[in-house]
């Protein structure tokens, strides 16, 4: 009886963890979450390849005492990426499927034991109210960067270095930190 109860609990937990992630019965057992995340990673990688290819045509930015050179490199890189992505729209990278997955993962992170820490971290940072569009740059000279809680980052799909999740008011943006460029947005992720 006791063993049966253990199996029942284990089965329920497994069902809650895996059920949303698998395709419907009758289809091959593919984890749907994994497919969505893989697709997202491909889109991010494609963006990064584009940016790197643009960057390779510019003079390489190296450590320099000249702030003008740093600013000039940033401006050139931003302009070229904007031009290459002038038709980019919401959902190109944050597809509806990955946006839904990120909403779910964020809710999970907040509901877990880390939730209090994440909430406090967000409140104690310098909350910003910004409405940014794709191809905008983050106005760091006017508005401080909101730090992204590490527990949240741990729950979200991994990103390559220099591509970051940033919180701007109620939105989550995907920021190319090197080019300082918003590459996609999920609206209203945070209440």
């Amino acid at each position, binding site marked *: 009886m006791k063993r049966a109860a253990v199996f029942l609990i284990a089965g329920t937990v497994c069902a809650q963890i895996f059920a949303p992630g698998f395709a419907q019965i009758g289809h091959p057992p593919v984890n749907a979450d994994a497919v969505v995340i893989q697709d997202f990673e491909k889109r991010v990688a494609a963006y990064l390849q584009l940016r790197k290819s643009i960057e390779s045509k510019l003079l390489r930015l190296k450590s320099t005492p*000249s702030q003008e050179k740093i600013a000039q490199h940033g401006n050139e890189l931003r302009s070229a990426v904007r031009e290459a992505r002038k038709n980019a729209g919401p959902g190109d990278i944050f597809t509806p499927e990955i946006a839904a997955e990120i909403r779910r993962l964020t809710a999970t992170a907040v509901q877990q034991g880390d939730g209090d820490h994440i909430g406090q971290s967000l409140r104690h940072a310098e909350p910003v109210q910004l409405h940014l569009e794709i191809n905008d740059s983050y106005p760091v000279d006017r508005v401080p*960067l909101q*730090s992204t809680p590490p527990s949240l980052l741990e729950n979200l799909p991994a990103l390559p270095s220099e591509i970051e999740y940033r919180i701007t008011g109620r939105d989550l943006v995907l920021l190319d930190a090197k080019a300082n460029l918003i590459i996609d947005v999920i609206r209203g992720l945070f209440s």
Partner: protein
Amino acid sequence: MSAEPIFMRAVRFFITASGSRRAILFLGILAAVVVSADDLPLKKDSVRFAVIGDMGTGDKAQYEVARQMERSRETAMFDFVTMLGDNIYGGNSAADMKKKFEDPYRALLDAGVRFYASLGNHDDPNERFYKPFNMSERRYYSFRKGNVEFFALDSNYMDPHQMDWLNKALHDSSAAWKICFFHHPLYSDGRFHGPDTDLRARLEPIFQSSGVRVVLSGHDHVYERIKPHGGIYYFVLGNSGELRAHNLRPSSDTVRGFDTDRDFMLMEIAGDQLYFQTISRTGGTVDSGVIERQ
């Protein structure tokens, strides 16, 4: 009766009795004795450095703290400065870098003092390419001085890449002293921000398991020395340029606090001892002490 009225009466008597020039000399000698009583030991071959946080305003107060650092360096001869973030507030054009960094610290830079920056929430992440900040083009990095290894972190974005790097770098380090510095404090009684408990939950276990002894942060524009947690000494120093006066609400965690003026810190590591001295914009010693290596 407190010592201050007696001292002031003595000064008044001295001025009356001996004229103002002698009085000034007397006060100068007295001030030198008082200050030197708290000075670091300045031992041979020790590692000496200064610490500043939230300084990049370009305002008069930042320049005055910088002057005080120059004066301290005449005796302490520190080689480098760690920066706890918010290095440059507002615009970050070449003119801004000059006004908010190069000009205030000109004498120190000219003397060969190196500055090592960490990024605050007001900093452009591409400050990592600005050579005088010695970040080697990285948001987070480490460097070694003698038997001390310093770990500069980007607390704005503590992603798994950085966590993995930090965990490995700290555990691989053979340095006798490991010091971490970054912007957002894990402990703080500053009312405006307070501690980042999410960051604390992630970082503190790594710090404790790898033998970090001292953690330096800014963000709250006050000075506070926190009671050690798990053998780690936490300092908040976010008032080397900015100041949020009377913003500290001391708790049972507070060992020493200062929120009425700007300051910076001097640190000296000699063998198994780390000496620290916090010095105000006007040259007074706000706090001092010794930390033993574990």
